């Protein structure tokens, strides 16, 4: 497992480097002067030139990249032009909000999606199976930004039950109240994916001989389903959980904009509107890093749960034990 972890960590280096390179190329090489765009059409040539100097845009792209990478290694993502603060400080302030939103959405989607998937698999082709799978597909097809608006319309505008803007600051209950609508709208797609995937994974396992044996031995249905079948259906589900966690970050960008949730998504979208390129660049790189690290964690947990993956890599040693 150590070797596997090490290998995956080493593979991470070129990926992260390419992430930085892509963001750099997109924001610098494509036609258009970032300084001129940031200052707008009214800016004087002198102002543009001063900003170019301040941002280091007059140096060669390789020298800019080198400086940026050096800074990055020290955790320095440059300074925000709009906020006049280090980008890393702004991110440190905003990321917890996105993390809370993503985690709560993940919990909701797991609590809804997995039991539905398991029950659907055990009752294949029943009414429950058909209805829940259609609902799951509708969930997957849902534009998250539209669902968010509809939830606001129903629960905030019409019923007045829940707040629709901001994160809340008057204690735990207030934060939870503010969290409900954004996390539900973000959770719907993932819940649909989990339900469909868990069902499919469970159906594969239910057909196995050892499940038939467990049933023949007269074990309780609950024990067979949850202890024997579900436990073995879990590794591929964990992979999909990781993938969904990453896509929650995508969804958060849109959800946060609608609910004015003060997280990374809103930060990046606002930075785009304010043409704060340093903040866009830093924010995007940070989100991509988080995305890569989540995927690594998923791969490692998958290897931990599935000895075949480790054996495939370590083949000669652990695989034979």
């Amino acid at each position: 497992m150590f070797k596997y972890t090490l290998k995956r960590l080493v593979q991470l280096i070129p990926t992260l480097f390419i992430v930085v390179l892509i963001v750099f190329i997109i924001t610098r090489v494509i036609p258009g002067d970032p300084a001129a765009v940031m200052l707008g059409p009214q800016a004087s040539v002198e102002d543009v030139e001063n900003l170019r100097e301040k941002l280091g845009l007059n140096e060669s792209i390789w020298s800019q990249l080198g400086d940026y990478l050096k800074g990055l290694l020290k955790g320095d993502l440059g300074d925000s032009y709009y906020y006049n603060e280090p980008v890393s400080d702004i991110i440190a302030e905003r990321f917890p909000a996105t993390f809370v939103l993503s985690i709560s959405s993940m919990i909701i989607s797991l609590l809804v999606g997995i039991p539905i998937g398991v029950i659907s698999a055990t009752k294949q082709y029943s009414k429950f199976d058909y209805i829940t799978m259609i609902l799951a597909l509708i969930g997957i097809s849902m534009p998250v930004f539209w669902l968010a608006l509809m939830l606001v319309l129903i629960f905030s505008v019409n019923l007045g039950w829940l707040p629709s803007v901001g994160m809340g600051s008057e204690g735990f209950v207030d934060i939870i109240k503010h969290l409900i609508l954004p996390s539900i709208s973000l959770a719907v797609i993932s819940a649909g994916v989990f339900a469909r995937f868990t069902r499919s994974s469970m159906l594969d396992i239910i057909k196995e001989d050892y499940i038939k044996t467990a049933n023949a031995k007269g074990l309780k249905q609950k024990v067979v389903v949850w202890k024997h079948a579900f436990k073995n259906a879990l590794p591929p589900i964990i992979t999909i959980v990781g993938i969904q966690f990453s896509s929650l970050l995508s969804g958060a960008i849109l959800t946060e904009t609608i609910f004015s949730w003060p997280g990374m998504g809103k930060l990046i979208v606002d930075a785009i509107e304010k043409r704060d390129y340093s903040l866009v660049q830093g924010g995007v790189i940070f989100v991509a890093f988080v995305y890569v690290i989540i995927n690594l964690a998923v791969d490692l947990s998958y290897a931990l749960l599935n000895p075949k993956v480790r054996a495939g890599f370590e083949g000669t040693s652990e695989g034979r034990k």
Partner: protein
Amino acid sequence: MEENVQLNLELMKKEQKANSFIRKLLRNKTAVIGLIIILITIICALFSPLLSTHDPNKVNTVEAFKKPGEDGHILGTDEYGRDLYSRIVYGSRISIIVGVLATSLGAIIGIILGLISGYKGGITDNIIMRLMDGMFAFPFILLAIVMMTVLGSGLQNVVFAIGIANIPSYARIVRGQVLVVKEQDYCQALVALGASKFKIVFNHILPNILSSIIVYATLNIAGAIISEAALSFLGLGIQPPTPSWGNILKSGKDYLITAPHIASFSGLAILMTVLGFNLFGDGVRDALDPKQKQ
């Protein structure tokens, strides 16, 4: 003579295979529902001038915020008094164009990269796949957003941004399939017979992996439609007055209390179309790869 007979047999086999695929697809009720939804959207896109009841861009502030069914406006009007039904009908054009073109762009480049990467292996494979890993490291919409920020809004740029962001998924899928197919006996035999690499890859490997690409592409159109709507919703995609479901939804967001019908109907159009492609995509997958049907 013998060659002709063999050729005929091969053609018959291909025809039978296609017929069996269509039969399986048409037997799948949900896939048929999906197909009907897709056809309705395509008809709306093709015949927008005939199907719309008003000029979608005609501003008439006196008629602003009419409710559905009021004064001959089937779905009501928006903040400028423009007919919402007509705008949604015209909006289908953007969704279909972006869905098809962005998917095709991502698929063509991704397939070529995946074929080269999988067949060549070695350092070429490594370079291409590391680049794909790097692109894959971005949340999809974020990559598209960043590109749109730099490129600027507009249909062409939306297609480009979504298409480029789609490349890594195709490259990965194709590469994985090529690695399996190229080790099969018939590929090895072609190598032994001295067939050119180009011929092996494009004439023999590609047709064998096409079914999984088709399945992915069908589902991917749904993703591209949502992405376009998302970009336009954020104000980065198609700009008003050109109607797109995303920018109609964006204006609906600002009038959620006074005119909830604007956001409701435009979002419903996105949901139904995406659902149509997902239902159809699932059906195509089941018909092409029965092993996955569960």
